[in-house]
């Protein structure tokens, strides 16, 4: 008897869940003017178009040196944004940590800064900075930097709070100073996890750099935008492929490092 009731209740829950999702999907399609049948119908056409137009031609290969140069600029920009963000996030992370934070007020402050810089989208930062910094690498760098600080601070706080406290307690018992505790117990214990997050951030930033580049006119995003707007499709293809290769290469490298240190 009871079992049957539970079963009916469960069934009802599933039905409600599906109905709610369907209603939301319908509303979303109406508001965004999205037609799934139209989308599916044009998909084969789109794929044919991609394979017939996005081909690398010899002519486009001549542009390879410029593209590679822009790509390297973009990668360096992402790395620089991540590493400098790491330094700030480390300080904010220690401040925001529940286990080794010094004061509640500082902890709240650190979490607030992290939340603000993470939740305001990179696009918004890029557009705001573009107004005063103009069209150069530093704009893209700063936009990525602000977003990275938010993300890395949250990850670092989590890493520090999850690490075992025994080393900290032991050092405190010997009368070590706060800086010594951080330097000799917290950082060594959390370093592998932190490096893993930093590598992840670099991967994300390279992808985001394309987006920021399109908006701020810097790096590989600018090359893409240029070819795209002049309808130079072989150029578009070459830029896309070079980004794919760069992203995969960096992913493989950081996976290798992760495998050793974690």
């Amino acid at each position, binding site marked *: 008897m009871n079992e049957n009731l539970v079963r009916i209740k469960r069934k009802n829950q599933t039905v409600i869940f599906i109905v709610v999702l369907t209603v*939301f999907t319908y509303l979303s399609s109406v508001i965004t003017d999205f037609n799934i049948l139209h989308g599916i119908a044009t998909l084969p056409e789109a794929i044919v178009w991609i394979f017939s137009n996005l081909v690398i031609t010899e002519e486009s290969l001549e542009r390879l040196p410029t593209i590679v140069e822009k790509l390297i600029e973009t990668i360096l920009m992402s790395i620089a944004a991540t590493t400098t963000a790491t330094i700030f996030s480390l300080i904010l992370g220690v401040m925001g940590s529940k286990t080794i934070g010094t004061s509640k007020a500082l902890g709240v402050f650190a979490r607030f800064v992290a939340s603000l810089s993470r939740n305001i989208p990179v696009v918004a930062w890029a557009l705001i900075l573009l107004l005063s910094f103009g069209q*150069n690498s530093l704009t893209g760098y700063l936009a990525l930097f602000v977003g990275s600080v938010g993300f890395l601070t949250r990850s670092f706080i989590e890493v520090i709070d999850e690490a075992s406290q025994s080393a900290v307690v032991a050092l405190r018992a010997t009368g070590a100073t706060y800086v010594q505790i951080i330097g000799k117990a917290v950082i060594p214990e959390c370093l592998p996890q932190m490096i893993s997050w930093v590598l992840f951030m670099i991967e994300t930033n390279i992808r985001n750099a394309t987006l920021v580049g399109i908006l701020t006119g810097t790096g590989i995003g600018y090359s893409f935008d240029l070819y795209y707007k002049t309808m130079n499709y072989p150029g578009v293809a070459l830029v896309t492929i070079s*980004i794919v290769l760069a992203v995969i290469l960096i992913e493989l490298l950081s996976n290798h490092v992760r495998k*050793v240190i974690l």
Partner: protein
Amino acid sequence: MQATTYMKRRRDGRISLNSGNQVQHVMQMTILILTILTIVAFLFFDYTGLNFKKALVETAHNLQAMFLEPALSHFSWSEAFYQVGITLGLAFLATILGAIISFFLALAAAANLSKEWLSKTVRIVLAFVRAVPTVLWVLIFAIAAGLGSEAAVLGMLLHSIAYLVKAFSEAFEEVDKGIIEALRATGASWWHIVVHAILPSTFTYLTSWTFLRFEINFGVAVAMGAAAGAGGIGFELFMASGFYFDLREVGMITYMILLIAIILEVMSTFLKNHYFPETVKN
């Protein structure tokens, strides 16, 4: 037993504790290389037309106008809500369609439910899909088929699938082997196993991951509006800053995006704490 290890000493005679530790070595090398690349980056940046001091003062001024005096001027409040709705709609469609497709692809990618070659193929294809930034997918689809919101949803869909298949297939692989074996022994078909063992035991996981992706997709949808003309609040943000140079409006739009992002974050943190084990992150 006699200790035969050779102790490496530093020049001042202290015993070097870290020698021969590969983990330490790799970590040091990683940090060193990243530091060098950072310095190289700053040397090679293109600083054309940049007056750092002036730009910094200007940014501070702009930020002040944005965040302390936000106001709407080019469109009304109802229009603003409508645009936010469009962005949420795009994110929702990409997430829900992504989740449905990912469920089936994840079954093919899970090592315990599928054949090895199939699972490998799916993983390699998705690694390629993930390597192309979302904005490029959206722009490519926009010209490839001349689509409006369909291009945006399609582009965002691809990355959602790449992300969710990884999460879903890992969840499937963690399902207790015994349950699958027991069902198989009763003569249950593959679909029976999926419907009666895999789906019930991973359902809360799958919905939580899907929601996490929805949170990400909201940010992506804002970005696609700004960079790929996909409409919604992101496009308004782009217009306000790039065409009208109206900082107060930029501030108001940023506040709206921030509010929704924080609501979504609070909800997904709640889900994470309630339904995920300690080890699952990101």
